[in-house]
């Protein structure tokens, strides 16, 4: 999901640092206040790609803002654990029917009540096909949902003003975990009068609210101030939040060094070599819920779901030296993968059975490839497609060279000029090579990394992988009410993936960021976004 577009800074920064060998005084900013709770925090962001409607925002630029100005039934704390926010309780006996009680006396910043209706109406709106909401698929499990026609969510029933029930089409043990995601946020009554106007000037119930009617200065910034109506666990400890929209990460990084920006959650790749010395202990580098891989579709010759295909996939996986690539190319800002999910997710394990296949082992790789050749001899070039506008060329070349050198076959990258072009070829299945795939979790659960990507006919199953055994384990994990039991099932399902390798796991993207000298209590959440409400400034 995350798209890096820039990368021309490297040469210039080298030139710049050569010119400025002496001195390291940062440019003074003009804040005179010290240690007060009225100081406004400035943070890095990007212009939202869509109107600010929770069910219509699926990228981080808008997501960051929505998470600050809305509050769902739950929020995720720094570790990704769900904490009740607007909800008093979420109960279920069978993981299929959920009874949700909303806390009393909660309001939106305009005074509209946060009640059962505010959730039901928002979800109904988000799910309806004719409303064309980008996040509508989040409601697919609720009874009544349809992709093909306008159909109300019959599974939502209001019990009383503060209570409603949700009935799913089938059991989903991780449904409560999803409820912290922005698609499930409530909407005030006023939103439905004019959704278009609401999208430009949203009224929420979160820790912050828009500073004014014109707080969203397109392409420049958005000003948020604390919302007194919010009574949940994310009380703002600062005087407000200004999210500045940068066109390039290099500009944001320069502002951080220049003292004009307090918190940065994306250090540009051109600064990977020196950000730690620039920022010292204010540099942040920790794993995030982003999984990177490349998918080998089963329709490719020699890579079918059979003995030969499995051998070749395993050989290719073992031919890749993940430790070296993450270290040399990414300067340690990626963590080599040991499964198909992410270390920040509850239930993650680095010791799954068969995880050895993700370790570099040239001899074993050669042996497996030879075994596959004995079944059917290999010819041609192994190619990995990627979008050239996303800064992927370096690692694709490195992986290709690993494969080439270890297996002694031709391997290369296959660049597509733009992201749109690559996605089009992948979606219409016209692509005849392996291709880069990535997944940023929407909510901190193992299922989110597995179901949408590898279940038979799942929406983002771009490689058309299908294994009934895997589907069955996912199903079992989903229908149990016990979270640990569910995670055990999901881990078993992953062990099947490690044998079949529908995609070759590469690494987890880290969140690489930093903060200014004047701010404290900067903590990054499970989704790579800083917990803005905790930050203080002096």
């Amino acid at each position, binding site marked *: 999901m995350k798209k890096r577009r820039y990368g021309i800074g490297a040469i210039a920064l080298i030139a710049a640092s050569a010119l400025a060998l002496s001195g390291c005084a940062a440019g003074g900013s003009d804040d005179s206040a010290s240690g007060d709770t009225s100081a406004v925090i400035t943070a890095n962001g990007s212009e939202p790609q869509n109107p600010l409607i929770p069910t219509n925002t699926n990228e981080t630029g808008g997501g960051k803002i929505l998470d600050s100005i809305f509050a769902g039934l739950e929020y995720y704390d720094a570790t990704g654990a769900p904490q009740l926010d607007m909800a008093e309780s979420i109960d279920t006996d069978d993981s299929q029917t959920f009874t949700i009680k909303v806390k009393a006396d909660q309001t939106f910043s305009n005074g509209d009540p946060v009640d059962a209706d505010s959730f039901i109406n928002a979800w109904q709106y988000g799910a309806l096909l004719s409303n064309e909401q980008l996040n509508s698929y989040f409601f697919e499990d609720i009874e009544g949902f349809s992709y093909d026609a306008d159909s109300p969510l019959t599974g939502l029933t209001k019990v009383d003003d503060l209570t409603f029930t949700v009935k799913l089409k089938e059991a989903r043990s991780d449904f409560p975990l999803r409820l912290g995601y922005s698609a499930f946020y409530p909407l005030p009554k006023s939103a439905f009068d004019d959704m278009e106007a609401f999208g430009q000037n949203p009224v929420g119930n979160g820790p912050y609210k828009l500073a004014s009617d014109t707080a969203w200065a397109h392409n420049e910034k958005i000003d948020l101030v604390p919302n007194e109506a919010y009574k949940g666990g994310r009380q703002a400890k600062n005087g407000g939040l200004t999210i500045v929209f940068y066109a390039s990460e290099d500009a944001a990084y320069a502002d951080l060094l220049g003292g004009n920006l307090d918190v940065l959650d994306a250090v540009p790749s051109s600064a990977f070599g020196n950000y730690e010395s620039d920022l010292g202990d204010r540099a942040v580098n920790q794993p995030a819920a982003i999984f990177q891989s490349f998918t080998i579709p089963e329709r490719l010759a020699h890579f079918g779901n059979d003995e030969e295909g499995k051998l070749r996939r395993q050989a290719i996986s073992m031919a890749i030296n993940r430790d070296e690539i993450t270290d040399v190319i990414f300067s340690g800002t990626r963590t080599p993968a040991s499964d198909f999910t992410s270390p920040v997710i509850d239930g993650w394990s680095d010791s799954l059975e068969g995880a050895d296949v993700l370790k570099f082992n040239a001899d074993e790789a050669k042996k497996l490839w030879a075994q596959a050749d004995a079944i059917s001899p290999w010819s041609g070039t192994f190619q990995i497609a990627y979008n050239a506008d996303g800064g992927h060329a370096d690692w694709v070349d490195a992986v290709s060279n690993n494969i080439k050198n270890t297996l002694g076959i031709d391997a290369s990258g296959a660049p597509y000029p733009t992201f749109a072009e690559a996605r089009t070829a992948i*979606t219409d299945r016209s692509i005849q090579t392996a291709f880069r795939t990535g997944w940023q979790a929407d909510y901190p659960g193992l299922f989110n990394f597995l179901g949408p990507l590898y279940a038979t006919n799942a929406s983002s199953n771009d490689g058309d992988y299908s294994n009934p055994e895997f589907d069955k384990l996912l199903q079992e994990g989903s229908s149990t009410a016990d979270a640990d039991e569910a995670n055990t099932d999901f881990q078993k399902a992953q062990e099947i993936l490690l044998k079949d390798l529908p995609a070759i796991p590469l690494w987890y993207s880290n969140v690489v960021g930093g903060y200014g000298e004047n701010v404290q209590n900067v903590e990054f959440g499970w989704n790579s976004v800083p917990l803005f409400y905790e930050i203080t400034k002096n």
Partner: protein
Amino acid sequence: MAGYILRRLLQAIPVLLGTTFLIYFMVFAMPGDPLLALFGDKTPNPALLERLRQEYHLDQPFIVQYFLYLGGIFRGDFGTSFSGEAVSDILARTFPVTIRLAILALIIEFVGGVLIGLYSGLRKGKLFDGTALIVSLVFISLPIFVIAFVGQYVFGIQLGWARTTVSTGAPIQDLILPAFVLASISLAQLIRLTRASVIETAGLDFVRTAYGKGLSRRRIIPVHILRNSLIPVVTYAATDFGVLLVGATVTEGIFNVPGVGRTLYQAIIRGEGPTVVSFVTVMVLIYLVVNLVVDLLYGLLDPRIRYVK
């Protein structure tokens, strides 16, 4: 004169229609589905995609899309971006910023270029002249992003004289550094151009005659030499102004200037047809007007050039 201007303006109509058609065609021909890119690495469901296509008319043949767009323009409707903002609002927001930046850069390069070039030309072969030539050569050969990054690092981060990026509303004081960066290469060109032109003019007969008549240097240099040296300089500066007005993608990106170049770049990346075409249309319009003004300026500088009919 009035007839000439009118004719030039009428010529602009077919040029505008032609360019919008071409640009629209090129955006249309860009491979890849912009709507798919909206969903990141996730694959949207086909029914939703179909509805979005209808909304943005992406399901229509190219020629129908073009005429729908053109029809909208005549009603003052330039279309909307994916984020739901009217393209006319985006135009109204970004062009003033870029115009401010362009005027600032033009002043820097024209005043600096002419003064330094004139001084250099009059003192041909002296130390000042040699230094100006070498320094200008260095600037001409540097890519603009190097100048921008170095400027940002030295003046923004190390010395703290300027903000590293432009703050909200793009106030003039924040635009000075980007304007210097933007002007630097043209400034170097103008120094060399003015210098060469001044040297040439200073050697002409009428200048010798002026000296012979006993006129003072104070009168000869501005009126006889400088004015007659300015034609190539004005042509260059005016064309450059046109270039500055249509935005500087790299510089605007580095200094985070919310102007035309940065916005257009993002629109191209996102495949927002209406935004791209509207911007380019306005840019073509600006180019046509600037060119007309340049042609009229010639007449002022050199009375021998006159436009009749």
